[in-house]
């Protein structure tokens, strides 16, 4: 019975808002993920060089340097101090994710997200349950291990196996056997453990969650009093533990903004909620009686 219910998550929202309305943020995310990749591919495929490089470091229109702060920190741990260009790029990226939410990287940019979302969707449809469990803290252990390994080996060891950079780089510069790792992660998430890669293991996501620890843009359960307990948001959310405090802990005085840095700002909860409980908001608008309080703030 429960399997049938989860497999149908979102049907209420489609009925209420139409298919497009119930998939708005999902479609925008896919456009963002594929679009950014397409911008990188425009150079090698069509000779239009808007952006060069890959997620590790890039140069946009020959002026804007962007650097992945995680890979740069590993390089520093490996004992190499980078040049100014890389540091500038890393600072820009860090500031950006502090604004828009650290793990926004995961759901709006990362190519592996499409793989794991597909696996989670299929797992839902097939009603697959159980399997192994990984501690959700594993990613932080792996993050620490990646830095420790950089220090011990003097090389950026994690980049030898990092699926995120391997696949994004591979799509632009040549995949080689990187399709293998896509398949491994897909099967891991489908058969071994639900949301295992992005939800428990990936140290890249763990790093970006730290960047977004106090990020400005957040999802807020603004109209949480309208919640009819359909559980659809819990079913689709890749980090469903983040919803509960904001949605359900009204009596404890917790505000409606989802403050957990593990929230990826994917907006699927906004999509699947037929009651329009959720919306994107700023972390500051976190007063308890939001609907009323927000209006007060705006007015005053």
């Amino acid at each position, binding site marked *: 019975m429960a399997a049938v219910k989860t497999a149908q998550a979102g049907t209420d929202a489609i009925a209420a808002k139409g298919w497009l309305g119930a998939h708005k943020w999902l479609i925008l995310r896919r456009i963002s993920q594929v679009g950014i990749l397409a911008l990188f591919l425009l*150079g090698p495929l069509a000779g239009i*060089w808007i952006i*060069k*490089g*890959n997620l*590790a*470091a*890039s*140069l946009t229109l020959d002026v804007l*340097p962007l*650097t*992945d702060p995680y*890979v*740069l920190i590993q*390089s520093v741990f*490996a*004992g*190499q*101090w*980078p*040049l100014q*260009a*890389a540091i500038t*790029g890393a600072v820009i990226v860090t500031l950006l994710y502090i604004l828009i939410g650290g793990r926004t990287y995961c759901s709006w940019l990362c190519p592996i997200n499409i793989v794991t979302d597909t696996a989670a969707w299929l797992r839902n449809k097939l009603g697959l349950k159980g399997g192994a469990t*990984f*501690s959700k*803290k*594993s990613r932080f*252990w*792996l993050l620490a*291990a990646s830095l*420790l*390994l*950089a220090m*011990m*080996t*003097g*090389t*950026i*060891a*994690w*980049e*030898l*196996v990092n699926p995120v*950079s*391997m696949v994004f*780089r*591979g799509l*632009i*510069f*040549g*995949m*080689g*056997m*990187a399709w*293998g*790792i896509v398949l491994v992660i897909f099967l891991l998430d489908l058969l071994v453990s639900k949301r295992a890669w992005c939800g428990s293991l990936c140290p890249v996501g763990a790093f970006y969650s730290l960047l977004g620890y106090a990020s400005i843009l957040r999802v807020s359960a603004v109209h949480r009093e309208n919640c009819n307990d359909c559980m659809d948001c819990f079913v689709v959310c890749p980090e469903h533990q983040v919803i509960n405090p904001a949605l359900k802990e009204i009596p404890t005085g917790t505000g409606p903004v989802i403050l957990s840095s593990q929230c990826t700002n994917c907006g699927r909860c906004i999509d699947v909620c037929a009651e329009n409980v959720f919306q994107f908001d700023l972390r500051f608008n976190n007063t308890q009686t939001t609907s009323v309080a927000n209006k007060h703030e705006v007015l005053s």
Partner: protein
Amino acid sequence: MKFSGKRRKFLTETARTAAGVGVAALMLGLYARQSRALPADAIRPPGALDEDSFLGACIRCGLCVRDCPYDTLSLAAAGDDVALGTPYFTARNIPCEMCQDIPCIKACPTGALDHALENIDDARMGLAVVIDQEACIAFQGLRCEVCFNICPVRGKAIDLDYRHNARSGKHALFIPIVHSDACTGCGKCEQACILEQAAIKVMPLSLAKGQMQGHYRLGWEEKEKAGGSLIGTEDKHEYNLPAGSRYDYEGEGLIPGDDTSKVPFSDNPLDALNGRRDDK
């Protein structure tokens, strides 16, 4: 009781995660050590730090690849022998064209390609080695000199050594000789080699170069540095023999005895020649 159960669960869960991550990290660490081994035919771009430092400094962004006007460089894909995502080229396929402005170095945001390298002639990507003298047709007495002529540092990195062709008795061999003080390792020679398998190959410096012990002094170089012989020419040459010994030149070796009145051989070199003939 309930409290200790929680703590127990926390501790076992933490231990389980730590052990799992530990195993993964150990495997990755071993793999990282292994992947430092760069295949001999994979050459790093100009200005690349030594391999160990390079693997810590290069963040695999591919900006050097993009700014190479000749599509020489590529990033190692998954499954290649080169450390994943790092830039390299294979000289036999596309060598480095040694651009004067070195755009690949300028593009590198981290300094994995050393920005201090400003003159491409100072690059040391590797060292060309005439590795198979049996296959190189110059050693067979045939005229080729393709590697010599294609070399961007022509006449300095590779020059020709004219040797007597003992087989024909009347021709010369035009032997290509590589000089490490000028060869940049660009690989133009390896690409141009006319053979099915190149007889001249660019090797990593660590493989291609020998090194004398630091205490070696070459007399003729020291003489030039000093501006004259360091051994006084007035000094009479003496054999440094054990006390009470002398040396018989005619095959008897060291002879004990104090009679040093006889020198082992005549001062006149012709005596040695004539004497030998006289013996027969």
